[in-house]
Each structure stands twice: as structure tokens, then as C-alpha cells.
């Protein structure tokens, strides 16, 4: 009962948010709708029992990436106008008949391909067939320091690269 409620709430939030991001012409509104969509995805993770993944989704995406995007929009002035002060459109119009037809067609083709590939995995489990959910935190932690310790350590190098890269890009140029 509650599982279904949680799932439908999260799924609706995800889809409505994502659709809003696509259709919104205001960058700030798009960012906020993206926040809603990311929250919905966290709810979906929670529904399948991946509690740590859900919390990470909140911490990293809702807390970090959305703020980063909001600041990035502020770099451009962030005004509600769809064109900037030089009269150039920030979000070029994409809604011509030709684009809709092509997009609709490619969505059909891609989704059929994916469905064909996924058909084997799309099996619905009865209650009790899967092991009872327990905390995924400890499993993730154990895997991170045993089987995937290299990935764990290398990710720190990746983060270091990101840190240095961010610092270098933002540095004022001399001369």
C-alpha cells in the first residue's frame, strides 16, 4: 500500500520535473524543476530499498549540483528573459514540426531497441522471492574496501583532478 504510494509520488515527481525541465524556457525554473526531478529519483531509490543511494542522491545532486547550476546560471546574469543583453537567444527554439517528427521517430526506435534488450531482465518478483531488505550501507562499504578498493582510491584522484581543474579554470588571467 504505502510502497505504491511512495513509488507513484516519486515517479510522478521525477517525470513531471523532467518534462518541466525540457519545456521550461526560464533557466532558473528549469533548475528548480530539475531539483524536483532529482528528489523524485531519490524517492525511487528509496522504493527499491537502496537507502544509501537515495541519501547520496539528495546530498550530491539536490544539495551540490543544483546549487552549482544555480550559480552557473548567475554567471550569465540569470534573468528571466530568454535572450541576453546582446539580443542572442539563450535557449534557441527547438519546436519546429521537423524536429518533433524526427524526435518522435527516434524515441520510438530507441525505446523498442531498449525494450527488446531489457525483456530478459524485466521479470516481476513475488513477495518473499527476494531477500529481505537490510541496510545497504554496510554492503557498499565492504565492497568499497575489498573488491573495489582500486576504484575507491582512484576516485580520490579523479576528485583531485576536478578540484585542480576547477581552480585553474576560475583563476584570473594575467596580462
Amino acid at each position, binding site marked *: 500500500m504505502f510502497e505504491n*504510494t511512495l513509488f507513484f509520488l516519486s515517479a510522478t515527481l521525477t517525470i513531471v520535473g523532467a518534462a518541466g525541465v525540457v519545456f521550461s524556457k526560464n533557466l532558473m525554473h528549469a533548475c528548480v524543476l530539475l531539483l524536483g526531478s532529482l528528489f523524485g529519483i531519490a524517492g525511487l531509490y528509496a522504493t527499491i530499498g537502496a537507502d544509501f543511494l537515495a541519501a547520496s542522491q539528495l546530498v550530491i545532486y539536490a544539495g551540490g549540483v543544483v546549487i552549482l547550476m544555480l550559480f552557473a546560471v548567475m554567471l550569465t546574469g540569470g534573468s528571466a528573459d530568454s535572450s541576453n543583453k546582446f539580443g542572442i537567444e539563450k535557449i534557441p527554439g527547438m519546436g519546429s514540426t521537423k524536429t518533433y517528427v524526427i524526435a518522435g521517430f527516434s524515441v520510438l526506435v530507441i525505446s523498442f531497441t531498449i525494450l527488446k534488450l531489457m525483456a530478459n531482465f524485466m521479470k516481476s518478483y513475488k513477495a518473499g522471492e527476494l531477500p529481505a531488505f537490510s541496510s545497504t550501507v554496510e554492503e557498499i562499504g565492504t565492497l568499497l*574496501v575489498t573488491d573495489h578498493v582500486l576504484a575507491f582510491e582512484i576516485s*580520490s584522484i579523479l576528485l583531485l583532478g576536478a578540484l585542480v581543474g576547477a581552480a585553474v579554470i576560475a583563476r584570473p588571467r594575467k596580462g
Partner: protein
Amino acid sequence: MTAYTLDVYMPVIILMSLAVGLVLVSVFFAQILRPFKPSSLKEQAYECGEDPVGTAWSNFNVRFYVVSLIFIVFDVEGALMFPVAAIFRKFVAIGEGAVLVGSLLVFISVLVFGIIYCWSKGDLDWVRSFQLSDEQVNQLKGIEEKA
């Protein structure tokens, strides 16, 4: 350990809907009770009595962006270290703690290196001092002399 049910998330959803409800109810009651006499003067942005010029939505300094970039790096670092920290005691208890201490220290030290790099290059300074080239210094001197 008892079987894990999704009921634990029920309070979260209830609390969030209560927040929405509180906002709707209070704004609704305020709507009924409060006066409503808008005028163009009231709706002006407050700038200490001056007429506002232009909009507030202007290009902001890049340093806000840099701060949030550095923040995300640490955020991801935290997210990766939390599960490892949660199992640390158990590994120590079975005598495998050295492995975890090693991997955690390596992980932290790489990031400490990053902080030291940013610090030494002055990226952590809010107000940045930067070296002018000789040409610019001479230009400035020229302006001063004219004045």
C-alpha cells in the same frame, strides 16, 4: 535484524506534506484576513528610498561558482567515505583494521594535497590579490603622474 520495510519513509512523506499544508493554510488565512491595496510604490524593489535602476539579475562573480565546485568535490568525497566509516569498527574488531586505515588515509591525503594546492595558489582567498605585469604597473604610474 528485522525485515526492512518501506514504512520507515512514511514519516518523511507525512512531514513534507505537513510542510506544504502549513504553507497553504497560513497563506490562505492570510489571504482572507489581510488588506490588499497594491500600488506601484509598494511594489518597487526596496533600495533605501532611491528609485531602483535596472534589474538585480546581473552577472555575478565567478568565485561563487568556484566555491560550489570545491564543495561538490568534498561532497562526493564524504559520500564515498561514509559507508567505509560505517563498517570501520567491524573491520577493526576482526583484526582487519589496518587495511581500512591504509585506504582511508590514502584517500584523505590525496584530497589534502588538493586543498594544499588550492591554498598555495591562492584559490581559497575570497579577495584575491594578483600580480600586475610591469606594463600595467607603468600604466598606473603614468595615470598617477598625470593626476
